[in-house]
């Protein structure tokens, strides 16, 4: 992995904005909130406006977050000159510690064992594949698998590696697009944004076809181009299949032309304006075509109830959490 100083400009610092809502409507958007709004307006209302969430955090989201962080930090360490083995050890231990939960009593005081050690245990997942053990295995196996890769982390004009970039991009109509780019790479003279995805299924070409069209990948390409001020060819996606006994990897590409990005941008502005209008009118139409996506919408059992009793069922099956904030830096 070579790390030559590049002429890629240093991206601007994210704008300092207090809230992602103005006059009661969302104006700062990331790929998560965009996907909610594009999937179903009622889903957007439940997730973004009302802040409903399943009581237990999704093991897929937790696993994916820890995995992406480990690889992002690995490439940062390497680009800053850390030896391979030291970088592996560092990110593996970081993941081990992140997935270790110390126990506290009801008053919040640490529970100690007889020797005075703070009692704790590893993260317990209710998914058979996305477990703590398989997370550590996947990190180690991924780094082994791509050890001799020919992708270089881009080094910016200030000498720093192009990893971990949170961005806020002011676009038309007072809208802000925001997000987080894990890594910018140079592959055979072309620039790509890198992203990691995990799945429980075998990775076939169809897996990568699922990212075109895809709001997240288009936003990454669009934003990467804008903040680094260079042509971005698309996103390189490293897919990891997580099974009980193994982790298997495939690399795929999702290209975006200038015309595709322009079209995506127009569509996104239109989706945002529609959602803002629905928010002002407090009317969020359901999209019945999306109810069966990905094994069924988590709110399907709620939408299937009569409107007058939905809140009772929401209170029984979901919890309110802090509002999702697209401007929160990772």
């Amino acid at each position, binding site marked *: 992995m070579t790390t030559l100083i590049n002429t890629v400009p240093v991206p601007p610092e994210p704008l300092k904005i207090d809230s992602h809502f103005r006059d009661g409507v969302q104006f700062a958007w990331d790929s998560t909130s965009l996907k909610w709004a594009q999937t179903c307006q009622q889903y957007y209302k439940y997730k973004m406006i009302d802040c409903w969430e399943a009581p237990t955090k999704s093991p897929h989201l937790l696993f994916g977050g820890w995995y992406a962080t480990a690889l992002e930090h690995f490439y940062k360490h390497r680009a800053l000159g850390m030896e391979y083995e030291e970088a592996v*050890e560092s990110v593996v231990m970081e993941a*081990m510690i992140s997935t270790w939960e110390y126990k506290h009593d009801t008053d919040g005081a640490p529970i100690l064992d007889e020797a005075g050690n703070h009692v704790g245990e590893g993260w317990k997942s209710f998914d058979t594949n996305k477990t703590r053990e398989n997370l550590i295995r996947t990190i180690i196996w991924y780094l082994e698998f791509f050890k001799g890769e020919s992708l270089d982390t881009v080094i910016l004009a200030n000498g720093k590696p192009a990893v971990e970039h949170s961005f806020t991009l002011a676009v038309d109509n007072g809208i802000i697009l925001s997000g987080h780019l894990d890594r910018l790479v140079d592959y055979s003279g072309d620039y790509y944004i890198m992203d990691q995805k995990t799945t429980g299924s075998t990775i076939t070409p169809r897996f990568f076809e699922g990212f075109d069209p895809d709001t997240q990948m288009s936003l990454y390409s669009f934003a990467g181009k804008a903040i680094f001020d260079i042509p971005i060819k698309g996103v390189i996606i490293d897919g990891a299949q997580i099974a009980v006994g193994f982790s298997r990897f495939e690399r795929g590409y999702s290209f975006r032309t200038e015309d595709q990005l322009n079209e995506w941008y127009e569509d996104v502005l239109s989706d945002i304006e529609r959602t803002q209008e629905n928010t002002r009118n407090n009317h969020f139409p359901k999209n019945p075509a999306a109810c069966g996506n990905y094994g069924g919408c988590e709110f399907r059992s709620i939408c299937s109830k009569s409107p007058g009793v939905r809140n009772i069922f929401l209170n029984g099956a979901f919890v309110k959490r802090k509002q999702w904030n697209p401007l929160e830096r990772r």
Partner: protein
Amino acid sequence: MTDLSVQPTLAQLFSKDPNKYTLQDRRALIAAYRERRKQFNLGQLQAGSAKAPSAKTLAVMKEVKADISLDL
């Protein structure tokens, strides 16, 4: 070389507070999974399972261990 007989098992490593890991613990964890990856590449589809390897897998691991040199 890693001596499998004196290494902590994966179960022991995963139940231990990672903030109290020794250098040996850290390296044993990584070495264990690297070894299991070799088994997977040889066709053992359950090699990466966190469960203790079967007697048959252990036998194969010992054979492979003779061919590799881990820098520990």
